[in-house]
């Protein structure tokens, strides 16, 4: 029998605020343990949360981009459970009255369009981190992540294939990143995915018992886990047994799925409205302002790159993979570099080094103005293209300006005709045989002569000029 999977997703995304959702502590990743904390996020007695408005605005951006309905009035709620990474013993989340209801994302699948509907998007605070050191009987607590703002996007069980899940996750990530709502950095846990999965025989309408896989921190893992779980459930059903409702964890290293907690520990979260916060009131004026502040999304950017900068579709596609790269590119051409040549360099050399050294564009030492300077030097002939690559590598490693590197190394290109003619004359005189052959029709020997000139000038000769003069002098 053929079985049809049904999948629903819950995606936790970290909002890109500078400070935490209920206090003024920084959200920056990678700080030393327990350096981003205060009485509020440590859950000390008597302290109170104060909502970070910017976090609400970032969530609102996502609603506007997914046609969600921003509620005029929403409430935070306490979700109660004990765990050492949860200082207050409850997480401030939203329950009955989320900030955003509904919404959807349309996918273009191989089998045509598919709409994934949202149930809701709500806001909540992240928990802290527990650090378990092997061989140590004590566990350690790090407050830095406590109170980092999250949105949880809950979809309807609308997924029927892995392709849909994959397209959806990538599209959602793109929205998160381009809207500025989240940095979308998977390695830093900015996006975490839970999946609800069930299978039913083809032809059956109602859904069967579902399981939930929690806390997958990469799309690859999420897809693998869902695939595993569908296979596991199919096995169970084919053996004539029943799938039981449980929460599972996926171990990507061993590729296995195991139950997360037993039934006895099933939580009753005892949600109730958070009395320390007032309702979140959103009026049309606020929504309009957020709409007007929405950054350019990827599609718009891509089309604009094609129209405004005359780029091929391929270039526009690559340059808009992230808003940071697109911004970098536009800064380079803003400094006067030729749009297509700048595109070639950003797509080629810049991305190559970012990939090789695994750094972000912000950490990249070649600032846009420096790359523009280099490209202009190539254009006006003061440096050759091949020489430029050497200079670029050096810029990337030590962050120095191209003009300084070129001057120090004496790499300035020789474009002066008189000087070039002297060298070329020397080359012609010392290679009479080749000259003979060239004249008798073997014109592809021109490359040989150019090579000789380059050798004598240690690559500094302007190749175009050399070509022109050589042809003149050999004819």
């Amino acid at each position, binding site marked *: 029998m053929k079985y049809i999977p049904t999948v629903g997703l819950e995606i936790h995304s970290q909002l890109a605020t500078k400070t935490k959702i209920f206090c003024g502590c920084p959200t920056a990743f990678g700080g030393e343990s327990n350096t981003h904390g205060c009485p509020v996020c440590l859950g000390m007695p*008597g302290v109170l949360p104060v909502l970070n408005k910017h976090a609400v605005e970032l969530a609102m951006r996502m609603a506007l981009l997914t046609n969600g309905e921003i509620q005029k009035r929403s409430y935070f709620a306490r979700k109660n459970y004990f765990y*050492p990474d949860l200082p207050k013993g409850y997480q401030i989340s939203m329950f009955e009255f989320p900030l955003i209801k509904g919404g959807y994302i349309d996918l273009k699948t191989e089998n045509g369009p598919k709409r994934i509907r949202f149930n809701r998007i709500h806001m909540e605070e992240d928990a802290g981190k527990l650090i378990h050191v092997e061989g140590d009987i004590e566990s350690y*607590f790090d407050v830095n992540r406590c109170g980092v703002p999250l949105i949880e996007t809950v979809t309807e069980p609308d997924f029927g294939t892995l392709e849909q899940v994959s397209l959806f996750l990538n599209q959602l990530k793109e929205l998160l990143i381009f809207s500025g709502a989240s940095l979308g950095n998977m390695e830093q846990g900015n996006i975490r995915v839970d999946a609800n999965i069930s299978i039913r025989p083809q032809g059956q309408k109602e859904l069967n018992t579902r399981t939930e896989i929690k806390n997958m921190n990469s799309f690859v893992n999420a897809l693998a886990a869902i695939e595993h779980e569908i296979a596991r459930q199919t096995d169970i059903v084919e053996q004539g047994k029943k799938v039981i409702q449980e929460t599972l964890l996926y171990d990507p290293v061993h590729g296995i799925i195991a139950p997360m907690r037993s039934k006895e520990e099933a939580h009753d979260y005892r949600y109730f409205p958070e009395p*320390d916060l007032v309702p979140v009131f959103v009026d049309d004026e606020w929504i309009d302002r957020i709409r007007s502040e929405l950054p350019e999304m990827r599609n718009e950017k891509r089309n604009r790159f094609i129209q405004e900068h005359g780029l091929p579709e391929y270039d526009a596609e690559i340059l808009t993979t992230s808003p940071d790269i697109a911004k970098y590119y536009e800064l380079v051409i803003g400094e006067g570099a030729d749009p297509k040549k700048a595109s070639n360099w950003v797509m080629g050399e810049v991305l190559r080094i970012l990939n090789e050294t695994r750094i972000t564009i912000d950490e990249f030492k070649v600032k846009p103005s420096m790359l523009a300077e280099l490209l202009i030097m190539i254009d006006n002939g003061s440096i050759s293209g091949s020489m430029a690559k050497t200079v670029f590598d050096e810029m990337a490693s030590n962050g120095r300006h191209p003009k300084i590197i070129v001057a120090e190394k004496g790499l300035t290109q020789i474009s002066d005709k008189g000087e070039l003619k002297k060298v070329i004359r020397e080359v012609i005189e010392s290679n009479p045989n080749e000259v003979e052959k060239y004249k008798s029709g073997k014109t592809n020997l021109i490359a040989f002569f150019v090579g000789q000139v380059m050798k004598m000038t240690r690559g500094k000769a302007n190749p175009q000029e050399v070509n022109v003069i050589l042809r003149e002098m050999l004819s």
Partner: protein
Amino acid sequence: MELFESGACDLAIKIKTGTISSEEVTKAVLQKIEQREYDINAYITTTPELALKRAKSIDIQRIQGKDIGLLGGIPMAIKDSIITAGIRTTAGSHILENFIPPYNAHVIDKLLDAGAVIVGKTNTDEFTMGSTCETSYFKPARNPHNTGRVTGGSSGGSAAALAAHECIAALGSDTGGSIRQPASFCGITGIKPTYGRVSRYGLIAYASSLDQIGPMTKSVKDSALVLSVIAGYDNRDSTCLNEPVPDYLTEIDSGISGIKIGLPKEYFEEGLDSEVCDITMKAVEIMKSEGAEFIDISLPHTEYAIPTYYLLATAEASANLERYDGVRYGYRAENPENLYDMYCKSRSEGFGIEVKRRIMLGTYCLSAGYYDAYYRKAQKVRRLIKEDFDKAFKTVDAILTPVSPTPAFPLGSKINDPLQMYLADIYTISLNLAGLPGISVPAGKTSDNLPVGVQFMGRVLDENLLFRLAYALERNVGTSLTYEGAVV
């Protein structure tokens, strides 16, 4: 001693003008503490050295011609549910027995800015859950008017400290009557301000939607003075109202002629002690003679106030007290077998019986399957109780009621009967549910020489009128400083 017949208003002027030094006043108060504490137990922690050091520095500032503030040099007692940086803050609980916070409550910052001298942290029922101060992990406070009687609670320590002259002014907190009821029992004045009038930042939460900090003092004017210092907006408390703070003293003796006062019939029914009733009715006569007009009113949902309160307050408390888990601060049981065991033992050993009772009640009422029947229904009734007041305040400007059905009762007489105990708050709880202000002011004494207060309730942010009404009564009855049998 003459010094103790002066309240905060008088002493603040005397200190400001150099008639007396803060050091002298503080020393006198510390001496009283030394004399009286053995049988009063008003304080959980006293800070004599800090207080003297601070008093001296205030005196120096005055000599240097600096503005020492509205409460410059006044020795004050702070209920131990209010966070004080560097001073142990226990909330009357074993679980916080050794907790020294690194931050101040908003009201403490305000008091210190106004020049107050903190002499110590006063006794309270554990996590302010109680009406007698007997659920304190420490020894219960005793009523200075009769040390065999309770002080009332939960701010019993502050009330007792005032009545025994172990401080000049104090702060309490009130969730269901915790300022007003001990004020009545100990013969002092206490006001629960409008919810949101005073920042809750740094008040150890019992029931967040009901808790409010307020002044407890020896006179009405003193309460007005202290409230004008601690009230006002604080951006660290989202429920704090952003409304200007009036000078409560300017209009305090402008009279009450023509003020319409309601007498709710539900507050004078079965269960009200006859002496308390008489004293209350005498207060009505006094107010009439001052020009007030009385109107019979009804607050029909009064009988539901106690059950409503014990559902909502305990529900919030069950969550508010989850942070005391032994992980980051506070009491942690030794040698737990595992994490779960650590939680269970730390909380079982760290909390007292009344706190555990309320955590259980609140947890139950929020549990799956019971939420709608209890928590949600209680929220609906809360709205009805509030609407009773809204309706009443269309015809009257204020409401006069008893504070508690009885005067201070003997220690130990109700502690084992929680339902009887809960009834002690029957006249004060509705006001917290409605978020309105109420003041308890001494109205007389029983034949046993026990003080009895009456309560004035007002509209949202109408503390000004409450002070005027209370002051009008006080002018006739006297304050705890002057009336017959005052404990000096």
